[in-house]
């Protein structure tokens, strides 16, 4: 350290004080629906042409005991033997991941008859063991065949609102659920999540198709299938039996993955669900028999916190009640489980359901107008809003153009950090995989490549410090996302008809976590909806909601070489239209507690 001057100098002028870099004048957008129609047609037609497939010849290993995956000296992870695996619902871990899903929202009318129905449906509920066994068989067969095996399954999960639990087991037991947001329900928390406060707004809770103050659901049943016919058969059977048991069907929603090359994409045209946390824990005590496969070599210190490049490992208590959780001050050590729930709820998980309508033309009209004003294509501009290109390739790794090969490489498409140059990972041998040869991401601490407002940066700041401190805290906020689109796609459709454009489409957002308030609500309110958290730069322009005494204008500070350009967003393209806060109980409790 240089020697400090100690002389006190009297300085009279403040004229040369440092001046922070100034914002440029706000960008005024003029979106003319008629003029934009042709461009919109071009954009939606162009989208939907992706080939983000796995590189040829790579065989993802089947999940099974792999002694080489164990890290000597690492803290032992919990083993989920058959009894526990048969108790945990399969959509929580490992997730259904099916192309066709159906959501049934019921209201209990007669408790005794509802209990009888619960005893009937309990054996139908698909467990973690069911799903994991199927996934392992699927992967083993794929390894043998070298292609996607012709296997089908149909799975069912169930979840209950606080009100339903209070009715089924009594208020005293229900009050033991410590998550206050769960007890309040989504409708009561709606405006806290930034949803519209004015009843005249189409997203106001009073206008929801389900989950509003007058149509809150007690029970949510999720049916998922590979085969659409199987799906219909099973959901019809459940529905018919439920209605015969006195349950009232409040609402039902079919969800489908988008067709063709848009598989896995959401309605705006962007690949969804690329980044999911990996759940720690083992299927058996056999060495290396992890729930989440480990791909990083021990010689790379990041093997302790990542399952594969970019996929953080989280202790299962972040998603399952009563299991070891993340240490708030450390990236890979565990902390004691939560205890603020009734004992029968252990291994259960809170489920958040949001039915989000997507106004695809509104989104792309905005992108066309703003992109044009900034000298960018609509695709370039929109990709900055998301943080990924439509294919799913991260902006951080390919700032100049989309890259389908990168998007299709699961060991590369999520491997990047924001604050420093990303270093290549050292991977364990993966048959046929030559390694991640794509250019690594350069540091972007000031958000000039992937802006601070970008959806993927808002909801997953990765290595960045945040308003809650170190990245270890951000790990406490992560959720398991299990959403699926609903409604007919418009992207990829040549000259979509006015009728098609008017049809409703969106996302059935489903997430699991061990707290609603500190995970889903935290991500939504604290980061997506805030223009200054976790960093200054604007609102999340994709899912962010803002309602300041009725004013729903959002903004982003778009980075340009001359300085940030503020763009006000007056239109909305993600509109809440329903949902609910639920609890997905352990399977035995459906029969023995809730249905008894």
């Amino acid at each position, binding site marked *: 350290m240089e020697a400090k001057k100690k002389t006190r100098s009297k300085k009279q002028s403040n004229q040369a004080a440092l001046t922070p870099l100034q914002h440029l004048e706000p960008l005024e957008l003029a979106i003319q629906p008629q003029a934009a129609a042709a461009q919109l047609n071009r954009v939606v037609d162009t989208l939907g042409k992706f080939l983000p497939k796995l590189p040829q010849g790579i065989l993802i290993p089947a999940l099974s005991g792999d002694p080489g995956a164990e890290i000597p000296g690492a803290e032992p992870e919990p083993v989920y033997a058959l009894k526990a695996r048969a108790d945990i619902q399969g959509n929580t871990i490992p997730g259904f991941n099916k192309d066709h899903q159906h959501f049934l929202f019921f209201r209990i009318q007669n408790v005794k008859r509802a209990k009888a129905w619960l005893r009937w449906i309990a054996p139908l509920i698909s467990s973690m063991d069911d799903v994991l066994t199927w996934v392992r068989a699927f992967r083993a067969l794929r390894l043998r065949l070298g292609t996607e095996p012709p296997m089908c399954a149909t799975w069912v999960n169930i979840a209950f609102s606080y009100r339903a639990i209070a009715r089924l087991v009594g208020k005293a037991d229900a009050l033991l659920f410590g998550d206050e947001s769960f007890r309040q329900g989504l409708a009561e928390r709606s*405006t806290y999540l930034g949803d519209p406060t004015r009843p005249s707004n189409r997203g106001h809770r009073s206008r929801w198709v389900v989950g509003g103050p007058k149509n809150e659901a007690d029970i949510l049943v999720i049916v998922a299938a590979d085969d659409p016919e199987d799906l219909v058969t099973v959901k019809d059977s459940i529905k018919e039996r439920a209605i015969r048991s006195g349950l009232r069907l409040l609402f039902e929603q079919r969800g489908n993955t988008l067709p063709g090359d848009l598989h896995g994409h959401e309605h705006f045209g962007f690949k969804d669900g690329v980044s999911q946390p990996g759940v720690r824990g083992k299927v058996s005590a056999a060495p290396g028999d992890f729930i989440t496969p480990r791909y990083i070599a021990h010689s790379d210190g990041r093997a302790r916190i990542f399952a594969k490049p970019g996929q953080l490992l989280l202790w299962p208590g972040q998603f399952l009640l009563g299991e070891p959780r993340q240490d708030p001050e450390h990236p890979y050590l565990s902390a004691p489980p939560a205890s603020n729930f009734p004992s029968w709820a252990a291994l259960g998980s809170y489920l958040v359901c949001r039915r989000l309508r997507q106004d695809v033309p509104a989104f792309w009209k905005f992108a066309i107008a703003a992109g044009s004003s900034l000298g960018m294509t609509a695709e370039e501009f929109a990709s900055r809003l998301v943080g990924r290109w439509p294919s799913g390739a991260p902006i951080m790794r390919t700032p100049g153009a989309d890259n389908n090969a990168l998007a299709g490489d699961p060991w590369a498409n999520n491997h990047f950090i924001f604050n420093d140059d990303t270093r290549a990972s050292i991977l364990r041998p993966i048959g046929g995989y030559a390694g991640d040869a794509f250019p690594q991401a350069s540091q972007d601490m000031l958000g000039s490549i992937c802006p601070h407002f970008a959806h993927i940066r808002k909801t997953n700041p990765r290595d960045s410090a945040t308003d809650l401190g170190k990245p270890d805290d951000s790990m406490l906020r992560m959720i398991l996302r299990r959403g699926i689109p609903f409604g007919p796609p418009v992207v990829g459709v040549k000259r979509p008809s006015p009728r098609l454009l008017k049809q409703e489409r969106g996302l059935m957002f489903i997430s699991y976590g061990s707290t609603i308030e500190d995970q889903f609500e935290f991500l939504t309110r604290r980061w997506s909806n805030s223009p200054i958290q976790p960093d200054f730069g604007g609102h999340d322009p994709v899912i962010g909601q803002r309602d300041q*005494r009725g004013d729903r204008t959002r903004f982003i500070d778009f980075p340009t070489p001359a300085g940030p350009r503020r763009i006000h967003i007056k239109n909305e393209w993600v509109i809440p239209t329903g949902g609910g806060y639920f609890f997905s109980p352990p399977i035995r409790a459906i029969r023995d507690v809730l249905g008894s």
Partner: protein
Amino acid sequence: MALLTRFDTPASLRDLPAGSPFYDNWHDFIDLELAPSTPGTNFGEFYDASDTDVNTLGTHSLVWMAFPRRVLMPHRDDRLAAFVEAERTPGGDIGNRNVQDEYCEWRVERNAAGKITRVTFTTESPEYWEALWAVDRTRVVALYRSLVSPAVVEADLHIGGVYQRRNRWNEADGIVHLMQSINTLRAALGLAEGSAMTPTTQITGVPPPSPLPTAADNYEMPAVANTSVDPRVKYDVAALVRKPLSVTLREPIGLYIAGYDDTGWTKPDGSPVGNYWKIIRGRPGQILRLEYRVPPAAGFVVGDIRIGGRRIEWGGQIAEHVTVTAGGIAGVRP
């Protein structure tokens, strides 16, 4: 870029007339706290803008939550317990500002029914008030009277002429500036400056070699305090320094309330609340003293408001929606 000629007061406050020696004294205080250059990793540095010439490349505002994370995390399953701890002094109810260690403290006032009527937040440093006291005691007393109570007299604020940070009107009977022991501007400057040099590492799980290597990214940073502010400053400054960049705090140097979010707060009738925030000292973006109070004409008080359906019973419920900031700039030597 030219050298800074004088450090300005926080939010460019002008509590004394132009020409007062107070302004030079304040400059000297900041200048003496900062070394001309504190070398960091990869030849980056933390610098004193009045001594070291740097071409600014960009700005970065560090933002963190006002509610103390150190109190929140041990109560991750019982938020109410955290709110209570952050406010209730053992054996009393005057506010537990001793645990409000995120460079933001608040004071709660209640009516006879126990309902909250006003919550006052401050990020003003004690050093500023000491500097003011050293030049013009009368002005300090006048400010106390306007901010806290007309009953303030000079004798309440000092012992033997030495200004007391924990005087009656800044502890038991009011709030004027930060009083928690490490909530000082000196500590904040030291935190920022000291963050330039940061060793590694925690993710390998083995004892680090000696001498300590440099963290290549934030996942390799060593363990730091369990507050929000310490890692926010340490990680961000260290990351900028190792680019390598020259980093310092943005003028006017200070700790500020950056924002407050009352989305989803409702009146007793369920409609959205009005704008009941009042900036008492500072300005938008550089708020030093902020008050939350419902105008008497509204017919209800703060304690009748609900946040996401939950009635406000503790100041912490508001504090967790308030954010604090310090501005940073980064650049390179000419």
